[in-house]
């Protein structure tokens, strides 16, 4: 077993890790990353980059291609994407950067770096069917405005989520 295999089966390597690129590209959503030539149209179209220059979709794509596994998966900034898809809008190569980022977030979540907010939302979906809790105060507020009672339930969602293993994902420890 060479160093590379070792790295993908246990703790991520510190330096470049060629298996990381392969692991990302294995996902159908991420195909096309190789077409990226780092022009930066994605970063120019990213509103988060506009107010928070440390977040750069262009650099993120580059880091994945370089195989910087740990650097990417442990990066808290990957969770700052606001899902506007401005990065994809003007990409001359039709790289689906939003989907690629989701693949990276999925890998980071599996490795234990998911933010508590998203883990908590999934828990609520499995209980109420919605990403939020529902309490008596809300029911009262809706009744006061003559809106029908909320009827959603979580059982079916729970069974489907459990099938993917996403119910087992734990949130990262907050400092």
């Amino acid at each position, binding site marked *: 077993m060479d160093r590379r295999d070792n790295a993908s089966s246990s703790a991520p390597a510190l330096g470049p890790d060629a298996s990381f690129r392969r692991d990302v590209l294995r*996902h159908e*959503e991420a195909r096309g990353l190789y077409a990226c030539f780092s022009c930066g149209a994605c970063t120019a179209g990213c*509103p*988060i980059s*506009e*107010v*928070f220059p440390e*977040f750069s979709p262009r650099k993120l794509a580059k880091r994945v291609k370089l195989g910087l596994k740990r650097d990417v998966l442990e990066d808290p900034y990957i*969770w*700052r*994407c*606001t*899902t*506007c*898809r*401005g990065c*994809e*809008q003007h990409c001359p190569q039709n790289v689906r950067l*939003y*989907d690629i980022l*989701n*693949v990276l*977030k*999925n890998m980071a*979540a599996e490795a234990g770096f*998911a*933010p508590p*907010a*998203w*883990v908590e*939302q*999934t828990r609520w*979906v499995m209980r109420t*069917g*919605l*990403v*939020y809790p*529902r309490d008596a105060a*809300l029911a009262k*507020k*809706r009744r006061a*405005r003559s*809106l*029908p009672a*909320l*009827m*959603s*339930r*979580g*059982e*079916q*969602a729970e*069974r*489907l*989520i459990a*099938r*993917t*293993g*996403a119910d087992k*994902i734990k949130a990262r420890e907050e400092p």
Partner: protein
Amino acid sequence: MRRYALYLGCTTPTQVIPYELASRWVCRALGIELVDLAEFTCCGMNQVNLSLEAGSLLAAMNLAHAEAKGLDILALCPACAGTLAEETERLRDEGRRARINEALALVGLEYKGRARVRHLSRVLYEDIGPERIRAGVRRDLSALRLAPHYGCHSLKPKSVFEGSDDPDDPRTLHELIAAAGARPLPYATLPLCCGGKSFPVSPEPALSLVRKKLDDLIGRRADGLVVQCQTCYLMYSGQQKAVRERFGDRPLVPVLLYPQLLGLAMGGDPVDDLGLDLSAVPLDGILVKAGLAKWS
């Protein structure tokens, strides 16, 4: 009469009740029948953060429920509309559909590929249309100069909105505002995102984005901003207080959801029908210009 399965999403029925209220009122007034489905859950939009597969399964499950009732979906949330519509696209692939259906069988469901999903504004634009909307106007709103905010998920990804707005030059909300009798206001930061989907994880960049648009509107002396998404509404209306605390005092910008504006134009009661009293930012300026000096 047009019938749709009403897809409320998670945020509107729990946190943005005025949007639900106004949407139901406007649809009833325009002859659009909305059917509530007990089986609907979260669309999967935020589950993709942890698992793309879980997100797809939730979307497909909701599509299957609507299909089983023989209904197309009318969604209030543009992100739900986009997530569900995008999944209908992916599920055109037979291999994928077979794989997803294998999972759906666990909960006794099957998706055959017949569901159609659109957002409320698109249904209003396409099924009713600006002409008929104009014909139903009862109150003169021509004194109002209102900036349209489309919201990212109402425009992108392009493939989901075939035949609708061009994300680089959207027009439908401008036309819908004009059809309600108000004046759509051009402004520079129109395409700017509200940051809402990053807010639960990192509020700072999101608040900076909200501030940028609000300051532009203050500079343009807009009477208000019109949104068509509950998350955009929470950011631009609900977070104005936080923006003022974080970046200093500045004039307040009234924010309306499109069905609230349309309901106002059609003669709806501002409180009982449209929930304008539930706004975090006072809407008195809007009401005065709409010829309603007080809450009716």
